């Protein structure tokens, strides 16, 4: 390979429907505990979709009130996850001009936008908060994290719907390889469980209607799956060049070995049915990481529990990995977390890193009757022990975005 720097994962942070930090999220996931619940808000009563996966720990209970009131909920979640990740990394001493941030979201401060309009309409234009724009702009979470840690090597906010969180990690890899930073704080965040967003997704026929059994509603690869469940959350990874991490004696979780990004150019929302674009993303990630399909010991599937998407992903895995796929345990964490949209890829990057690091992957829950078109080894019922080696995680987004990240065990 070239002389580009190896990139290591040295810090993790998350706040999800399963827990307020990485440890609680990971242990709930290994235990197969669902984070999908009935929506108790009064607005949900009248809607056809009354389930969701809200974060387990309300960010307002974590941040100081005065801090929280000028941050959109998506920014609050990103900040909480970033604080955990930065502490977990040992609060690295880094030249601010060599510290970058890449934090994505799918829809940014959409709830801020809606409530600001309600204020405008109900109380008049004068009372529209001067904090509205910083709270709603899609780069707001990235900028909030950048301010928190004084990052001066660039703050980026890639936007690619449900692939955003993974794309942020892929962009961070590029930033480090290009030599534009020594440390990057990267990840994704989302907080869009609002009646308007719920109905906008519901009217696309994208959401599960299994209101009578919330915990069983997100069922990737199961025959009776009927759509995804909206979730919210955030996850952040601290990435460093190997040289920087080794010089400070950092704890290392894994190597971010490669990334693949493609686009379908097929349809604004529907997955390309053969999974060709997704297959290319997987192949590009493997090539970038200098990995063969037989080097993989785990696949974290995007699998959101939609009828079309899950099957297209299986096809993509078969196309890209061939016969090697038969020996690779696959899991779909959205069966527990719901779909955290722009945060999903980042949360699953975190759990894929932990799977590689600890040699175990969580089960996929709610598969009572596997779809006939699913010819992959999906981990069910219990966590699965993994062989040492490498893993990939997939993320796909409306717009035809396909992102695959490849992690492998870091050499000691």
């Amino acid at each position, binding site marked *: 390979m070239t002389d580009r720097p190896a990139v290591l994962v040295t810090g993790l942070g998350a706040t999800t429907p399963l827990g307020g930090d990485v440890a609680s999220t990971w242990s709930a996931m290994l235990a197969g505990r669902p984070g999908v619940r009935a929506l108790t808000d009064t607005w949900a009563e009248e809607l056809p979709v009354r389930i969701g996966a809200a974060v387990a720990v309300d960010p307002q209970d974590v941040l100081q009130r005065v801090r929280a009131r000028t941050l959109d909920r998506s920014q609050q979640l990103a900040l909480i996850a970033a604080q955990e990740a930065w502490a977990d990394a040992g609060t690295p001493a880094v030249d601010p001009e060599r510290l970058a941030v890449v934090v994505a979201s799918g829809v940014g401060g959409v709830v801020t936008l809606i409530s600001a309009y309600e204020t405008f309409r109900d109380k008049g234009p004068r*009372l529209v908060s*001067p904090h509205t724009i910083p709270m709603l702009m899609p780069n707001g979470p990235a900028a909030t994290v950048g301010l928190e840690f004084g990052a001066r090597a660039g703050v980026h906010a890639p936007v690619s719907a449900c692939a955003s969180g993974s794309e942020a990690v892929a962009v961070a890899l590029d930033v480090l390889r290009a030599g534009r930073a020594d440390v990057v704080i990267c990840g994704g965040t989302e907080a869009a469980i609002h009646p308007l967003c719920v109905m906008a997704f519901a009217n696309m026929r994208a959401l599960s209607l299994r209101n009578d059994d919330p915990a069983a509603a997100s069922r990737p690869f199961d025959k009776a799956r009927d759509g995804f469940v909206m979730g919210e959350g955030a996850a952040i990874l601290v990435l460093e060049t190997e040289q920087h991490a080794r010089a400070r004696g950092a704890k290392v979780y894994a190597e971010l070995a490669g990334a693949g990004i493609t686009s379908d150019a097929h349809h604004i929302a529907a997955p390309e049915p053969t999974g060709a674009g997704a297959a290319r993303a997987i192949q590009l990630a493997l090539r970038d990481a200098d990995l063969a399909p037989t080097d993989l010991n785990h696949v974290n599937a995007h699998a959101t529990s939609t009828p079309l998407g899950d099957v297209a992903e299986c096809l993509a895995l078969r196309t890209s990995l061939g016969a090697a796929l038969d020996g690779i345990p696959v899991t779909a964490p959205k069966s527990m977390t719901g779909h955290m949209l722009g945060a999903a890829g980042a949360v699953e990057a975190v759990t894929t890193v932990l799977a590689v690091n600890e040699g175990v992957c969580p089960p996929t829950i709610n598969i009572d009757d596997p779809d006939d078109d699913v010819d992959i080894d999906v981990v069910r019922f219990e966590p699965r022990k993994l062989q040492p080696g490498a893993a990939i995680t997939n993320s796909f987004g409306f717009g035809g975005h396909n992102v695959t990240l490849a992690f492998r065990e870091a050499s000691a």
Partner: protein
Amino acid sequence: MEDTEILSGMAEIIQEITGVPKGDVQPDKAFIDDLEIDSLSMVEILVAAEERFGVRIPDEAARDLRTVRDAVQYIKTTGVAA
């Protein structure tokens, strides 16, 4: 309206918006240099003061309100005029 009444109203608004404790909001404190209030929160504070005291504080006037005393005096005089 008495100065003290306006002062305590301003202190409540500032605590609510910025978290600066009410007791720290004293007449000779400068909004930016002493209380470290950022420009966006300052806009929010003045709009809240307008609502509470039934006055108008145009941007040209707001620019001259450096200290808490400046704001209290402005509200007092324009409130009397209105």
